[in-house]
């Protein structure tokens, strides 16, 4: 009972470790879970002196690795080292511990003790196990940067030891000649680690410069580049001392060549942390090395850090894979130990009757590799022309980063009430209307090609729009260039409110093509270019919009901004409906530049636009997003928009009376957005991250939009006020 209770208490720690385990893919299916179990047991039960509990839980983990394919050798070795540690350091059973250590070494000859869980008695048993363990002894693991060169690849115990043989001709010591012979033999057999080990043993017995050169050459080939450079440097020094110029020059050339290839690791330490301990592949990193470039050997490097934040112990682990000449930066982000709660896994493992049931526990506990995003946006708009809009929107997105697919959707509702000058001008009352906009989309990656399909609708009492589209994007040049092509088709039905579409409707078709490409310019900036073409056909004239017309003699005297009363006094009495061209081709060329600084981002966008109606426009949008702290971001927003009117735009349309009736212009509109105008937007926004994992975000933004109409009736300017509040959450 107590055992079950204690293990149940362990569950939160286990679950936390599962949640916080590095995302790197494991070699075998149960690797991640078993590594978490091992780490959790050592950090919780073992540290607290609950050795029996620790052993029981490790035995559960052992069961998880029962099938050979369930765990990799490295993880199985780690598990047995943990078992040995508990047996030697806690249960005081050195013989059982030795057996566990021997198994660990057999599984992975390069395995080492857990640096945080060493004690003299554990090290003693470990030493005994190593002595009787794997004969391969010298693994391929590399020396860490802070260690001296002499303990490098050549620091391993030789497989074959000197047994008093006489020195060969030309040698002063038997040991020196014995190991040198073995080193050259290993070199011929391309056993580079053995070559370095024997060479080192020979050099320690008899300090020949040529032997040190051999050690360095073998280390270089074994991937021990840091050690090799150090040994080449030692060779240069020794050769210069002995005036062997050729060897010195050769060693210098090789050291220079190797130095340029050595990967570098930069470890950034977190703020406000005490007792910070950082290790790279078990080697401790001193405080002064943090933040600067540390030379490391190529391959996987695991950075493990522990420290206290506000007195609470926290930890961090990240593995990076470094290749030739690469530099990686690891930012230590300490997280509390034992945070999340999932008692189910340990309970399930304890209750399992068969291995299959046991395996099922792990399978079920595994998180779906999905990222979910949900959100709600509420926006509102009000302007000086008595138009009000409120728009709540709900949206979601599901993404499977490993599978390369995702889907999402949104649902927006617009509630518009308007009593604008134009409505008053046609003697219409204030009206209120709702619009519903559902949208769905999904994408799937096929190698470097991402295919997206999307659809949307817009439903109003007098207008129905439907659209479908696809976007195909391809990652080129290691994802630094991503061109994309989009095609959207939409089919709109415009009608009159209260009248069936069968009685009155106009059909509008739209084909939109979009050619875009994003370019990673450098490690801080991205440029996106875009060219879009929209081809519309159909009559989009508004069936409610009446255009005032004037006599030939009056029209030139009508002034911009003329009042409603004056216009009504001078205009022709007939009510003439708007008439727009029956087709439109729209072209936009845009560029978007984003640059990330240390704690801020500048975004600048420019769009040039022209269409077949003669409207030309330029739009510039600027945002500077500044991270005030980890959780708070603020940004000012500026936008400038300038456009000419359409070619058929007129302040006062002339309609002449003729014997056949009133002669009106073929094309006419009162839509101010088709006339010349200037718009300036200034606003502010902020995003606040909150929640335990900072996965909640609250975004508030507000804009004031000033529009200057350059050649319109009734009004010459408009002040618009837009605000939006968005709540979003990311769940992994």
């Amino acid at each position: 009972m107590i055992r079950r209770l204690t293990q149940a208490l362990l569950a939160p720690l286990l679950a936390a470790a599962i949640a916080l385990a590095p995302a790197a893919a494991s070699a075998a299916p149960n690797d991640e879970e078993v590594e978490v179990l091992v780490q959790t047991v050592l950090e919780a039960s073992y540290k607290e002196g609950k050795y029996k509990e620790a052993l029981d839980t490790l035995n559960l983990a052992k069961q998880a690795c029962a099938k050979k394919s369930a765990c990799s050798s490295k993880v199985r070795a780690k598990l047995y080292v943990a078992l040995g540690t508990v047996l030697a350091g806690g249960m005081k059973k050195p013989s059982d511990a030795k057996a566990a250590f021997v198994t660990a070494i057999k599984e992975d000859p390069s395995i080492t003790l857990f640096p945080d869980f060493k004690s003299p008695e554990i090290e003693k048993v470990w030493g005994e196990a190593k002595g009787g363990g794997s004969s391969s002894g010298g693994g391929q693991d590399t020396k860490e940067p802070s260690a001296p060169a002499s303990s490098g690849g050549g620091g391993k115990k030789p497989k074959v030891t000197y047994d008093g043989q006489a020195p060969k001709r030309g040698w002063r010591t038997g040991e020196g000649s014995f190991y040198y012979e073995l080193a050259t033999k290993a070199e011929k057999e391309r056993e580079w680690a053995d070559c370095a080990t024997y060479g080192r043993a020979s050099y320690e017995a008899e300090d020949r410069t040529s032997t040190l050169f051999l050690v360095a050459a073998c280390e270089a080939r074994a991937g021990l580049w840091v050690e090799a450079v150090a040994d080449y440097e030692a060779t240069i020094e020794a050769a210069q001392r002995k005036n062997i110029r050729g060897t010195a020059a050769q060693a210098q050339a090789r050291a220079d060549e190797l130095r340029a290839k050595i990967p570098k690791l930069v470890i950034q330490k977190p703020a406000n942390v005490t007792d910070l301990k950082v290790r790279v592949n078990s080697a401790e990193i001193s405080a002064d090395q943090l933040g600067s470039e540390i030379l490391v050997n190529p391959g996987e490097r695991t950075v493990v850090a522990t420290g206290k934040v506000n007195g609470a112990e926290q930890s961090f682990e990240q593995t990076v894979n470094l290749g030739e000449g690469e530099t990686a930066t690891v930012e230590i982000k300490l997280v509390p130990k034992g945070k999340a709660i999932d008692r189910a896994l340990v309970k399930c493992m304890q209750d399992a009757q068969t291995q299959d049931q046991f395996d099922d526990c792990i399978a079920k506990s595994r998180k779906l590799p999905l990222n979910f995003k949900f959100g709600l946006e509420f926006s509102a708009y009000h302007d000086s022309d008595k138009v009000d809009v409120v728009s709540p929107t709900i949206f979601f997105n599901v993404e499977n980063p490993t599978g390369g697919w995702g889907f999402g959707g949104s649902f927006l509702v617009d509630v518009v009430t308007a009593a604008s000058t134009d409505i008053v001008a046609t003697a219409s009352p204030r009206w209120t209307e709702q619009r519903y906009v559902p949208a769905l989309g999904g994408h799937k990656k096929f190698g470097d090609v991402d295919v997206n399909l999307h659809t949307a609708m817009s439903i109003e009492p007098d207008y129905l729009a439907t659209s479908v589209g696809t976007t195909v994007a391809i990652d080129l040049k290691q994802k630094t260039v991503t061109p994309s092509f989009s095609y959207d088709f939409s089919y709109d039905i415009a009608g009159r409110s209260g009248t069936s579409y069968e009685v009155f409707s106009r059909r509008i078709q739209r084909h939109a093509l979009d050619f875009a490409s994003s370019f990673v310019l450098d490690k801080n900036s991205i440029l996106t270019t875009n060219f879009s073409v929209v081809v519309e056909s159909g009559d989009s004239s508004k069936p409610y919009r009446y255009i005032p017309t004037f006599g030939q003699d009056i029209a030139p005297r009508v002034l911009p901004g003329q009042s409603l009363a004056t216009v009504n006094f001078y205009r022709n009495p007939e009510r003439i409906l708007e008439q727009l061209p029956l087709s439109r081709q729209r072209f936009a060329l845009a560029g978007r530049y984003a640059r990330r600084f240390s704690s801020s981002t500048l975004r600048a966008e420019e769009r040039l636009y022209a269409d077949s109606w003669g409207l030309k426009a330029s739009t510039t949008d600027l945002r500077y997003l500044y991270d005030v702290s980890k959780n708070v971001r603020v940004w000012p927003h500026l936008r400038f928009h300038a456009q000419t009117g359409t070619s058929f735009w007129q302040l006062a349309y002339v309609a002449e009376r003729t014997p056949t009736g009133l002669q009106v212009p073929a094309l006419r509109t009162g839509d101010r957005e088709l006339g010349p105008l200037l718009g300036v937007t200034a606003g502010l926004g902020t995003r606040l991250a909150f929640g335990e994992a900072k996965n909640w975000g609250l975004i508030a933004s507000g804009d004031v939009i000033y529009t200057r109409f350059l050649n319109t009736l009734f009004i010459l300017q408009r002040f618009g006020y837009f605000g939006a509040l968005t709540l979003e959450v990311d769940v992994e």
Partner: protein
Amino acid sequence: MLDDDTTSSLFVRAGRALLVVLVLGGGLLASTGCAPVAPYERGKLAHPTMTAADMSGFGESHLRAITEGAVGGSGGTGSGCGCN
């Protein structure tokens, strides 16, 4: 309703603009090849504020569509806003 000359002239100009985009794009593509950004150097590029897409929310995008006479250039068009 506009005369054919105006429309065809626009298409010619649009074609030229597309050509400029392709040339600039090709140039950029070639130039970025000289200084590739390794995956481990892309921490800043992965920041949420560095998205290649438009950052406007739903309401803001719709507002632009009805208060400005220009559309497009935002990386995706023709979603059928149905604005009238």
